[in-house]
């Protein structure tokens, strides 16, 4: 049985109320998570040709934390890209762990998985260029998804060596932290997107549809159904060497695929096969 004196001697941890921490409605959070789950799938599908072992990037979840609480991967091969959302005060960064960057570059160069101790080694110039290009490409797809979701345009993109010197956030600024991971390899193949905490509220500002309390799932599906999506009509594709592409000049002529095996694509994912007939006055696309 406790005495009053005994209770008084127990130190209860005092948790500071965080005024800067954003208030998020459940519907906003679910929609925001759904967007990033779709981004993980888009990344995996777009990199399927070189993701070793048929693995996939998976969205682990959203939480909030101060900038100072973010664990920075200090390995020299880690990739950090800073960005902002145009016309908003929202800043963000995307950080690939060194092991993930090594994994992706190894896949691109068909060199297999890097040994454990190589994640701490510095990239060669070519590997570094491939890592930056891969990171930019992933950020490009993130930007497309944000634009489609009405979150705004990803802008002011720049690479960063040391996050602490980026002057992007105050140490105690509350951030939305979106964590992604490739599991099952025994390595820290992780990716983090951090955004100003107000990003989730921005989602609500751009969504005119009222989400009712009664049927949240149906309401979210309804919102997603009406989201605009950019569709591309692709005549065909072919493999070309980088050197060949660098030699392209204005006036050069290329024989294109005939359009018999064309397709419609959204975010580089083939969504419908099609046949395209080119005429002098335009083109006709028949969905197959």
């Amino acid at each position: 049985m406790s005495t009053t004196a005994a209770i008084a001697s127990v130190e209860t941890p005092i948790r500071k109320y965080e005024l800067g921490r954003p208030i998020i409605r459940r519907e906003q959070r679910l929609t925001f998570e759904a967007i990033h789950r779709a981004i993980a799938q888009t990344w995996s599908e777009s990199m399927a040709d070189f993701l070793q072992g048929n693995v996939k990037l998976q969205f682990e979840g959203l939480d909030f934390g101060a900038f100072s609480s973010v664990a920075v991967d200090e390995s020299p091969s880690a990739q950090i890209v800073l960005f902002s959302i145009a016309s908003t005060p929202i800043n963000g960064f995307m950080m690939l762990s060194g092991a993930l960057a090594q994994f992706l570059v190894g896949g691109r160069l068909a060199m297999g998985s890097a040994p454990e101790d190589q994640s701490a080694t510095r990239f060669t110039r070519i590997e570094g260029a491939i890592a930056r290009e891969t990171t930019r490409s992933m950020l490009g797809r993130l930007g497309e998804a944000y634009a489609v979701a009405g979150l705004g345009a990803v802008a002011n993109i720049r690479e960063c060596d040391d996050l602490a010197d980026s002057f992007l956030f105050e140490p105690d600024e509350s951030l939305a932290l979106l964590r992604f991971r490739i599991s099952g390899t025994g390595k820290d193949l992780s990716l983090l997107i951090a955004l100003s905490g107000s990003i989730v509220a921005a989602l609500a500002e751009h969504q005119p549809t009222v989400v009712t309390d009664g049927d949240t799932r149906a309401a979210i599906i309804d919102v997603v159904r009406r989201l605009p999506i950019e569709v591309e009509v692709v005549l065909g594709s072919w493999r070309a060497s980088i050197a060949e592409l660098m030699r392209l000049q204005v006036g050069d002529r290329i024989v294109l695929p005939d359009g018999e095996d064309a397709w419609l694509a959204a975010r580089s994912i083939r969504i419908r096969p099609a046949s395209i007939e080119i005429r002098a006055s335009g083109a006709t696309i028949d969905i197959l």
Partner: protein
Amino acid sequence: MMFTTVVDAVLARAKMPLEVVAALSPNDRLEVEPPAGSHLLVQLIAEGQIIALASVEVVDGLLIATIVENHLSNGPGLAGRRIDQWKRNKAMTTA
């Protein structure tokens, strides 16, 4: 070592509601029309970047693209001219 990449020839792009895209079915027909007096254009895209813009014509039964803008020589990552030149007709064929 020779590095290669996949080049996509994109004839047109447009924003459509997800539900309209989902409803596209066989025998639906889409039409691409260049602006009056202009050639049909195609974007050549590699690794998500527009590397060149080309006009398209049929020569001896072959589709020939003639490069009119080369974005690689101007540095990577430049956004090309958009090809918003299509309209959609639902199920105009014999279905």
